[in-house]
């Protein structure tokens, strides 16, 4: 039981990551692919934040009388990673808009048929 309590958080996060990853590699619609990519990344962020948590700790902002803080380093890393994620999303979505304009579709198999596949 203790074992489950120690790890349940990681396991659910792994499930979420894989749900996102599945959407990325199985979806045929490009917008859905990008949604999946975001879910995948957001879940990885949860993995990082989970490992920074200290039971009984508080947010890493100095307060009188508090001695136990959660680890600030994963938070910093994930702040950066979130920004990187939104940057990638923006570029991906604008590619989709352009693809729609030049091919008339955003379904992967449809525009593959329109060009000779390499």
């Amino acid at each position: 039981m203790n074992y489950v309590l120690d790890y349940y958080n990681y396991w659910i996060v792994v499930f979420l990551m894989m749900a996102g990853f599945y959407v990325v590699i199985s979806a045929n619609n490009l917008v859905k692919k990008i949604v999946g990519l975001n879910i995948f990344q957001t879940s990885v962020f949860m993995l990082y934040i989970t490992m920074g948590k200290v039971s009984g700790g508080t947010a890493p902002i100095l307060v009188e009388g508090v001695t136990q803080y959660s680890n600030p380093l994963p938070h910093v890393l994930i702040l950066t990673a979130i920004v990187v994620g939104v940057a990638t999303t923006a570029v991906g979505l604008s590619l989709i808009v352009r693809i729609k304009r030049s091919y008339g579709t955003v379904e992967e198999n449809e525009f593959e048929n329109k060009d000779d596949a390499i």
Partner: protein
Amino acid sequence: MLEQHLAVLPIILPLIAAPIALILGRSILSWGFATLISAWACFASWQLLATTLSDGVISYAVGGWPPPWGIEMRVDTANAFVLLAVSAISTLVLLFAKDSIQKEIDESQHALFYTAHLLCLAGLSGILITGDAFNLFVFLEISSLATYTLVSLARDRQCLTAAFRYLVMGTIGATFILIGVGMLYMKTGTLNMMDLSERIHAYDSSRTINTGLAFIMVGVSIKLALFPLHAWLPPAYTHAPSAVTAFLASTATKVAVYVMIRFIFTIFGAEHVFEDMSMDLILMVLSVVAILKCSYMATVQSNVKTVLAYSSVAQIGYMVLGISLVSVTGLMASMIHIFNHALMKGALFMAVGAVFYRVGSVEVRAFNGLGKQMPLTMAAFALAGLSIIGVPLTVGFISKWYLVTAALEQNHWVVAALVLAGSLLAVVYIGRVIEAAYFQEPEAGRAPVKEVPWTMLVPMWILVLANFYFGIDTSLTTEAAKNASEVLFQNSTEISALIESLHGPEAVNTANELSGEVAQ
């Protein structure tokens, strides 16, 4: 004053120059500015290589915070060597780009092209220099985002789907690396590479560390287009503007190979990766399959850029093969090939770009009769092609020589034979283009074309001549590569014990001899 900051200069020069290039706005201004900055970065990396060769490792604490609390820039011969290749190619490609992009990118987007190029250069330099695993991820994303932009700048619509596929694969790869780094951090509490490598040894057998290693390896393999994760590369290289392909083909994947080397040898230690996890066998099989399969694919394509793109995947196979041999010679072959392949592919893609500039197509058919009409360009293509094949006096020969030597050292006869078979396939795919250019009549109905302007010929021929210079006078490349692989192996503790357990005592003697030579 700048001497003490040498280690960050190659990153911050293009990083600061990129926004300025965007503000400058006018095509010619941002071109001149970007080229100057790139040349300066190249000069700085030359100084770095010279310093590391004479004085050893340079460590630079950004922000004045000592590692592992702050972010460390750490330059040794290995990354200085690759950095020199990257920044030199960047400068030459920028020279080449001025005229080349006139035909391939809309005038209004030229400033954006130079900005994205500088961002890409900054990202690649950052990946090479940084000594911090998370910082590496950040720079990886800078270079990737700039790369997606560069690929999508071309006019034909297929570049969009190619860029999108590249974006999805690249992001999956980067996220895998992020997961892997997270697992390492979870077990060790640090992100600094040197600190990681010290602390990982306490946890060698931990499942978390091994999973982290697996995720990092898969992520990096996507980035370096290792077979069978290479599907994004051929379309991206085919449809990107020529100047972009010339730059990416000779730098981006090489940097990813460097990342793989760094993670294996510096962070995890060769002993752990190869002995405990038997990753050498996986890598060796994949790289040999990559060499044969993709060289074969290259022979059946009708678009010359696709031919060269598949050839690039095959060449990456050679680099990974060198790593998988787990010896100083093998690693040295990889390092030399990273440098040499940049020279060959840069020249080849520039020649193809020149053909596109005049003819407007890069199908093999379009090359018919160009040998007479564009003699200098086609001569450059032919000579660089000889180098890809591995003819003596070219750099390609040097790379393959070391690779075959390394394979034979460990009695991998089959591997050595397959490497040579790959060269034969290279004869076929380069030969097809040469044959079209020199022995076919021009297609009826096509107006005769002139040679390209000198701004395109000069960088192309500098690379071609470099192919021969470094093929004849190998002192610089071999010295740097030897030094680099020695430095890398030093980090992998108890390497001789490892080699002994893998290949028997004879191999240890060879390795000792080699490191002895290096010491002299």
